[in-house]
């Protein structure tokens, strides 16, 4: 007789409606079922149920019938907390705003010892920067061709923070459809912007067009340093945070590809080296342990939207 046999036979864990009950088999049910019967009819425990309290809704797309109910519940509970304001255009994206996430910013700086000296690696030396800029000149020339019409539009759309590249891969078709998820992405953007600027200032790497005057950027060159790319850092920060929030979502891989394209588009525009893009990704990955503490509340709210 195994050491676990007596424990399990004395107490039953029953799935009851959306929850669970530990019961004494001898008293709670009034009768002990026939040995060997794996299923139970327990009218005393009949309750409203259906997929809640479990992973079925995310892991199995056929079992998401409670999604709308849960979404509404969380939206009401948190309306004042995140105060998502949406003035979206006809595309469904582009107008989402949140109040300054001061709690999260304060927490970020309280944890600065965990992120101000991450082993990002040094930027390339000038000779290597010049070598990488040659590839950018070629991309910049190709950008003007008809084959890259879509990319040109993307680059212009991505000049400012616009969430379609992050929400669409997850199947969300407007800023307002998943307000807590949208608010989380905006919070990540706030934090990443600050962290990225700190790293940029430390390395003070020149922009590609400063190193190679032959390069004519497609967009205005930002006034801050090149390494690491904040577009890359911000995008990958969103992707890594969402991979922590919803690892079960089948769209996570697509989200990473989309974020990568947003980051690489800045190379095509002539404002970042590939080294900047790679550094932004590395920094985002290393920042996740900080994000999951600082943003825990909002990450849980975002996850609840999908349960």
């Amino acid at each position: 007789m195994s050491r676990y046999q007596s424990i399990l036979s004395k107490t039953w864990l029953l799935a009851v409606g959306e929850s669970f009950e530990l019961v004494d088999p001898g008293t709670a049910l009034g009768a002990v079922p026939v040995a060997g019967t794996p299923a139970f009819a327990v009218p005393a425990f009949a309750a409203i149920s259906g997929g809640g309290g479990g992973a079925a809704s995310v892991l199995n797309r056929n079992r998401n019938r409670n999604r709308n109910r849960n979404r509404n519940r969380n939206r009401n509970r948190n309306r004042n907390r995140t105060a998502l304001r949406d003035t979206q255009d006809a595309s469904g994206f582009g107008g989402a705003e949140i109040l300054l996430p001061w709690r999260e910013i304060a927490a970020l700086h309280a944890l600065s010892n965990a992120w101000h000296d991450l082993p990002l690696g040094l930027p390339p030396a000038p000779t290597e920067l010049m070598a990488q800029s040659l590839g950018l000149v070629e991309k910049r020339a190709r950008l003007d061709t008809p084959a890259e019409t879509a990319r040109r539009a993307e680059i212009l759309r991505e000049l400012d923070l616009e969430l379609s590249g992050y929400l669409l891969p997850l199947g969300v078709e407007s800023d307002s459809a998943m307000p807590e998820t949208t608010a989380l992405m905006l919070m990540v953007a706030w934090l990443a912007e600050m962290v990225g600027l700190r790293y940029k200032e430390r390395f003070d790497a020149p922009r590609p067009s400063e190193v190679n005057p032959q390069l004519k950027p497609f967009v205005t060159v930002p006034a801050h340093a090149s390494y690491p790319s904040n577009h890359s850092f911000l995008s990958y920060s969103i992707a890594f945070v969402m991979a922590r929030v919803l690892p079960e979502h089948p769209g996570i891989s697509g989200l990473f590809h989309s974020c990568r394209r947003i980051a690489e588009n800045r190379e095509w525009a002539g404002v970042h080296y590939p080294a900047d893009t790679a550094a932004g990704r590395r920094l985002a990955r290393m920042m996740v342990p900080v994000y999951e503490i600082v943003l825990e509340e909002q990450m849980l709210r975002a996850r609840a939207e999908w349960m």
Partner: protein
Amino acid sequence: MAELQLTPSGTRGEGRYPAFHALWHLCTIGVVQDVTTFASSAWDLAERRLDRPGSRPTLVAMIDTSVAGGHPNLKDAVAQDLALDLFSAELGAFPTPAATLPPELSGPPPTPATAKALPFADRLFAGLAARYAADRPGAPDPSRVFPATRASFSAHGTAMAGLIGARPLGADAVQVVGPVLLPVPGTPPGTGPGAVPVTPQGASGFAYAGVDPYCRIVPISTNFEPEAEQLIFALLYAWRIGADLIVLAREVSSPLATVAPVTGEDPDLATRLMARLGVGFRPDELDAWTVFEALLLEISRKIPVVCAAGNSAEDHLAYPASLARPDNGIIAVGAHSSTGQPAAFTCGHKDVSVYAPSGDGERLDLAMTRVDTDSAGYQSTDQSVDYLAGLGAVPLPGGGAATAATYSSLDIVSTDVPGRAGYNSSVFTGLATSTGAILDYRSYYCRFSGTSAATAITAGLLSLAYSSGALKPGDGPAAKKALRGAGATNPAAATPKLDWSRLPRPPAHPPTSRQEVDA
């Protein structure tokens, strides 16, 4: 006056589901005889073997999310000292390193299964002991990359680990309390409902068990970026610690997933893949994916790799379950519901190695009509002809037969992240009282489904086969063949269901240790 009703009684589901035992799947796969006595010859054998001097628990490497290792049912099941997180740090971070280097990480590392992985192995293994030491609390390393293993975001790994190896805890090992009641205002102190904890109904104790409650589970967490390097490191680490089996329930988004297994050089492959992804895919990335696949196939010949077949109800296997062939140890796991039929969502490809219990799903399409008639959202007047044509008999406890249209409301139940996080959220933020008693034990469990759940159950059974001595570790194809049973040698035959009785009988006097088994 007649009452106006939106939906007349009898035309819709009532939303009243029967309760069910959380461990029904242990009966289905034959590990326990019933849920009254919980008699289990497999557990008896494993326990006797483990209690003998020199024995070593089966080591399960689980490549998944992080795990809430503090869960009462999991704290003795999870090998915290060996857990490795590859989410944030390139070469991994140790979330909970021990004071001394575990024996699994001591000594020279083994040569990787394939020479292609050598450069990756050199990077991962060089300085591993020093990195382990540097990750101990208080170690002076200002540039440390912390692990991303917060329990709040560990739901999937926690559910997987529970199904594989959760330990039941008796009433003496865990204290469960109810909420404190405030006195009714205006009543004298000591009268009425006062400051006395409400005692939960029923028995206490955390009566939940994984399939093999004798194994050790090593969480190897990754970040789900479609990038091969971290998965190569995860496999190499499992190889390094001497894992007996590997669990990989996630679908891996490799560009090789859409092409045949690597059989030779294709100079145009990288170009075609670059165009498809729309990003600057580099040749070295493709090389890394090639190494991952080669390493996975080679490792699986020694260490079986249990993979999820996929939840999309389509006739193609998720990658890397799609690599399953008779000559390797990749085990593609599909899901069947409590009725014994393939779950509505499961992949039904002929190369599914084995079906294991899971929850069910609803479908109403040309291939399948399976609707949850108990759901409050169900209305019998909708699509009634199509549905009723395939309905047949509905199984009820104690009688009735299932048809392809029969929906099962039994999900798999597993361990969950306690509190607000996880799949089953608590209404309380803090769950443990000042004395360590647990408030709201309900949030420690969740419903779980998909081929992930079936994969975890299969991994648990395979682990139990090793723990009990029914199977010898070290041969992936043999493990797969044993799970499928002697009658499943014909690939065209129906894929078998997971069942302990298919496995060979353990020897009457099981060996005392893995070394003895190997000898």
